[in-house]
């Protein structure tokens, strides 16, 4: 059977209207499967692998302001996070939040201000049931099947910010303007973003892929941020979570955060 030009244009036009052409072209695309495993080149032999990446935060190890700044700026410089110098345009992947803000409604009126304002390191919780992934209309944010990291496809994000409304941790930032002029020392190893897309912590997927720990974990004081495979019974994170008292932010919402806060770590850990 042969088709003439007119017929071809008809079919091409209709199928592109219905999105069939593009669907067929995108091999990664399957709306029925919850997790997505993007095809990639043969992974590095040295790559760090896990079934469920998780982090334990031991705030007792953070003693000085410098400890915080080193940890935060390690992430932000590695990932070309811009500094606009104002709250309105602000973008942040990992930051410091007072106890009463990191864990709202957990304080008591008799608590000393000092305790209420104990700083906590906060970042994306890489939830087991991420609300942001559930709401995203394009799967631009998705949960990687292999290791549970909640990732972002900056090229697919349409900037609707539904994920920001859905995230109960305020972990997501939006590029309200071109971020590039506000990156002090651009890291050429990591892409910069364009305006109009949402971004957040990625547990340093790009570093894990080459066998490195996340930038914040490396820069934090020894034992401050412990990173590992929660699914592995012998991992340090698993042992801490099993045997010590840890809390998670807003765990009652059923999101299943993968960042655990060790309480009273001072003496033992």
């Amino acid at each position, binding site marked *: 059977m042969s088709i003439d030009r007119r017929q071809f244009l008809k079919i091409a036009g209709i199928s592109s209207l219905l*999105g069939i052409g593009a669907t067929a072209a995108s091999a990664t*695309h399957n709306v029925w499967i919850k997790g997505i495993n993007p095809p990639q080149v043969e992974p590095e032999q040295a790559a760090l692998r896990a079934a469920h990446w998780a982090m334990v935060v031991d705030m007792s190890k953070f003693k000085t302001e410098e400890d915080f700044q080193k940890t935060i700026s390690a992430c932000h410089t590695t990932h070309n996070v811009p500094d606009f110098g104002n709250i309105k345009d602000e973008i942040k992947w990992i930051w410091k939040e007072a106890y009463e*803000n990191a864990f709202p409604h957990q304080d008591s009126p008799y608590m000393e201000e000092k305790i209420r304002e104990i700083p906590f390191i906060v970042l994306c919780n890489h939830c087991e049931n991420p609300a942001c992934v559930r*709401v995203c*209309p394009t799967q631009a944010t998705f949960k990687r099947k292999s290791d549970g990291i909640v990732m972002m496809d900056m090229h*697919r*994000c349409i900037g609707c910010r539904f994920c920001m*409304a859905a995230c*109960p941790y305020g972990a997501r930032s939006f590029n*309200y303007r071109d971020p590039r002029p506000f990156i002090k020392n651009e890291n050429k190893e990591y892409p910069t973003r364009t305006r109009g897309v949402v971004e957040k912590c990625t547990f340093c997927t790009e570093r894990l892929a080459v066998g490195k720990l996340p930038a914040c974990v490396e820069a934090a004081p020894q034992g401050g941020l412990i990173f590992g495979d929660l699914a592995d019974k012998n991992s340090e994170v698993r042992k801490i979570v099993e045997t010590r008292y840890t809390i998670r932010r807003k765990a009652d919402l059923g999101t299943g955060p993968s960042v655990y806060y060790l309480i009273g770590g001072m003496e033992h850990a």
Partner: protein
Amino acid sequence: MLEKAFEGGKKYWTWVFFLGALAVSGVYYYIQQFNYGLGLTGLSRDVSWGLYIGQFTFLVGVAASAVMLVIPHYLHDYKKFSKIVILGEFLAISAVTMCILFIFVDMGQPMRITNVVLHPTLNSVMFWDSVVLMGYLVLNLMIGWVTLSSDRKGVAPPKWIKPFIYLSVPWAVSIHTVTAFLYAGLPGRHFWLSAVMAARFLASAFAGGPALLIILALIVRKVTKFDPGKEPIQTLGVIVTYAMFANVFLLGLEFFTAFYSNIPGHMESFIYLYAGAHGHHELVPLMWTSSIFAAVSLLMLVIPKIRRNETTLSLACVMLFASLWIDKGFGLVIGGFVPNMMNQIRPYWPTRQESIITLGVWAIGLLILTFLYKIAVSVRERTAGIEIEH
């Protein structure tokens, strides 16, 4: 029939050019926003939706309200609505168009809008919202056009359109239910996490939309030779009254649950909106304006004498519409974001550019409405006195 939109007197063209000028200034500022980014608005990482999404939400309600004419007319054979049901359907077309435009101007990457279709995501409420809105637009375009063309020819509308008209009834309910689900299914946003959200949306839509229709019908009577009739307007007035009672009742339920349970997360947004918190009172005057307008308009509507007088009825409708616009087009969205997820108050106020873009979208919507109503009215003026069985 389209040519009717381009035949008009001096007043008509003045109005069209006025709206056109507003639309152009909106486009002008939108181009600025397109080039600079959404940083041109008052939005932030704490309040990431604002005036645009508020307008979108409000207008979905206006669009859905056409069903308040379709149900009595087509399901209950209420003949008095046969002349104005087209006004409802055309209002829906204009409102849905504005909804789509508000979503568009709110997007960070508008050029990627087709990603929603290219990567359909069944677990995203936003995907479904775009599906139902598009469907509703198509339905109303089709129904409005087919019934009006038949009217013009003086014949009854073809039978095949009936199933589509019936379908438009649940479809109208679906657009506002799905829009409510955008909000009502998010963990951690206590202000929105309410099972009555969709019901509240529908109630406020069925009050606000018909109130707007009453105002529009009175304007149409004043500026054209087409009289929508006294009785249909009165019936609409009764519908508005009942729906507004339901809306105020449902809002009351929200207050009860929040304050009787005494759960801080549930109370904080209400406190911020109506009383202010931590020294921030930005929205308090607006929210109280909304409440007072709601109470006064309801009182006016419930007294038969006031409701039956078209002057006082239209005044009540204007107040009611303004009340719902503030409540749903602004307070509802902002209240969900303040306080933020860290329980901090980070207020939001739209910028000048953002407001002009918003005004521009409204102008485009009104322009579409003007053209559509002009067409409908021209047909009605020609067929005045002829009653056609629908």
